[in-house]
């Protein structure tokens, strides 16, 4: 078993007790709540007469079901089910004294975008949410993972969950990402290499030169998709990049308290001689922008590489590849570059941060979205939106022909008005390309970085962004 890693240290600090079923009782430092996975737990607590013991360690916002058209956000919401979920969350948070950033808040947005930007997520914490992309928060050196609804109930009732300790796999990435290549490409490469179930039973510790060089926003995108590789959590050890990001954030400590807290953050980082259950090496040098050709996030190639022929894949992957290619309509041996797209979607908890839109805007500057492409820009939070509007980035998107929206999960999972129609092919900055994920069972999602989405929007086809003059 691993020893001396951040995972070991944070786990030990948060372990409350051994449970009779052999699991550990783990204290949860930050519980993020949204409207989809919380109504039933709150109802159960009410029925059982249980009060929330640590309301201040729980924070709620609304993201999955909210309309992203400005005119669609008037209350009551037109969709009665969505209105019901929102009303339930308003009541549940107000009755329990939990902070809620609702549609009327300038801080509303996707849980995994809001918590980092408010400084709620900090190193050395345990963070959970009823959403698999909670892994995002590991970018700060927190142990962060998604939980089911019954576990949401457990956290509300006790601020704890019953959990099994995982093994730790260190993913060491040497080298440097080239121009036009982003952290999204890196994580897609990692998942393609290790498989969508390669991380089951593991937590991923990302390190090495290429990871150290990433900004916090880029680190968040890497950790976000840990779950797509089967790892329930992924993290990056805290360093100066982490501390600088946190300084001055609303919920970060101030002045002397910041320095004191920093001592704790530094103390939980993995030791130089930490022991891992597994170590994997990758090289960022020469990495291409990545795109998916199939129906899971691991079915990805470099944009100029040929789509693999099923017969050339390991036996266990052939049938899935055939089924996937039948669905996505791609031809083995051809690169993904050149396939027409119908929709371009920028946003989500993976790539809905200000830096993502700035990277895309650099590509869009002075250009227009292709005639036959429907293009959506959906900021991950209202803070992201107002920041970009203050910089004039929204003007670049509007001028290019993007629809500029309000914050929410939008067509990542299509629990709102935004959805693919028929067999539309979508260049998407989201995290999942499973069949039906974007709201149409025949829809086709091609995952890529925000810069690549912008390039595809302009060309009307999957395009290597490095072939376009950018940031002139």
């Amino acid at each position, binding site marked *: 078993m691993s020893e001396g890693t951040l995972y070991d240290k944070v786990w030990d*600090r*948060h*372990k*409350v*007790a051994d*449970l009779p*079923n*052999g*699991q550990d*009782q783990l*204290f949860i*430092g930050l519980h993020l709540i949204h409207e*989809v*996975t919380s*109504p*039933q737990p709150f*109802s159960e607590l009410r029925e*059982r007469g*249980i009060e929330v*013991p*640590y309301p201040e360690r729980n924070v709620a916002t609304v993201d999955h079901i909210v309309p992203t058209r400005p005119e669609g956000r008037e209350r009551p919401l037109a*969709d009665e089910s969505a209105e*019901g*979920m929102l009303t*339930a969350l308003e009541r549940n948070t107000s009755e329990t004294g939990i902070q809620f950033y609702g549609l009327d808040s300038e801080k509303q947005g996707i849980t995994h975008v809001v918590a980092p930007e408010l400084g709620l997520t900090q190193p050395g914490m345990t963070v959970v949410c*009823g*959403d*698999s992309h*909670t892994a995002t928060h590991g970018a700060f050196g927190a142990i962060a993972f*998604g*939980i*089911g*609804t*019954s*576990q949401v109930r*457990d956290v509300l009732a*006790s*601020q*704890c*969950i*019953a959990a*099994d300790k995982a093994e730790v796999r260190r993913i060491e990435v040497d080298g440097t990402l080239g121009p036009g290549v982003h952290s999204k490409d890196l994580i897609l490469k990692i998942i393609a290499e290790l498989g*969508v179930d390669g991380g*089951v*039973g593991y937590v991923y510790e990302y390190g090495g030169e290429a990871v150290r060089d990433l900004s916090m926003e880029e680190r968040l995108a890497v950790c976000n998709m840990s779950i797509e590789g*089967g790892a*329930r959590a992924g993290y990056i050890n805290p360093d100066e990049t982490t501390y600088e990001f946190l300084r001055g954030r609303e919920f970060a400590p101030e002045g002397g308290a910041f320095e004191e*807290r920093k001592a*704790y953050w530094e103390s939980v980082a993995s030791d130089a001689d930490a022991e891992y259950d597994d170590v994997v090496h990758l090289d960022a040098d020469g990495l291409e922008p990545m795109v998916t050709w199939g129906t899971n996030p691991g079915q990805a190639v470099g944009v100029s590489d040929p789509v693999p022929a099923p017969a050339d894949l390991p036996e*266990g992957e052939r*049938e*899935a590849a055939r089924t996937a290619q039948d669905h996505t309509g791609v031809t083995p041996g051809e690169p993904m570059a050149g396939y027409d797209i119908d929709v371009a979607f920028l946003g989500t908890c993976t790539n809905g941060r200000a830096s993502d839109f700035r990277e895309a805007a650099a590509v869009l500057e002075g250009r227009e979205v292709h005639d036959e492409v429907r293009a959506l820009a959906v900021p991950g939070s209202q803070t992201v939106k107002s920041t970009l509007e203050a910089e004039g980035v929204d003007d670049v998107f509007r001028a290019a022909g993007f629809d500029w929206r309000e914050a929410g999960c939008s067509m990542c999972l*299509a*629990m709102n008005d935004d959805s693919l129609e028929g067999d539309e092919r979508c260049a998407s900055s989201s995290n*999942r390309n*499973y069949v*039906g*994920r974007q*709201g149409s*069972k025949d829809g086709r999602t091609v995952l890529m970085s925000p810069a690549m989405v912008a390039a595809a929007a302009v060309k009307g086809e999957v395009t290597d962004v490095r072939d376009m003059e950018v940031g002139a």
Partner: protein
Amino acid sequence: MKVRRVAGTGVPLRGDDIDTDQIIPARFLKTTTWEGLDEYAFYDARRDDEGELNDHPFNEYRGANLLVVNDNFGCGSSREHAPRALARWGVEAIVGESFAEIFADNCKSLGIPAATTDAETVTELQDFIEENPKAGIELDVVDETVTYDGTTVDVDIPEAMRGALVQGIWDTVALLRSNMDAVDTTAADLPYVDSR
């Protein structure tokens, strides 16, 4: 309630990496209760282009309670609605090559054993069910075996899941709340938590 064995008939569902969006599409999660989720289990896969029910196993094997799946079942979204929809449809136990972790945790929360075995054993079991849809199958949670057609094969159930099921302690609220003093002590020792 203790879950020591699940006996009944099987439903084979082939394919690797079947994610929770396929088990229950996101548009059916807009609910504040768990009512009626059985209607939505594999909703899109169970219908043809005209909306008519097709020959999907969840249409063909109604009344079955042991689901037999392949690799990495339940990956993707954390939604507990997925095992809840399966359970409301009638699934009481799942045997597969492997499960995504959050999905397996959710099964445990609902008292549904999720047992694993090798690919060959899973395929044999799926073949057997397709040829003998009415034949009895039994999962023994205590002994970690599956018995069908006079054959008994070994399966694995993670110790925490097996312990919880066999002892009937998968409803963890009371368990966790019985340690609130220790919770407060652990919390008070964390530099970022204000004492309660």
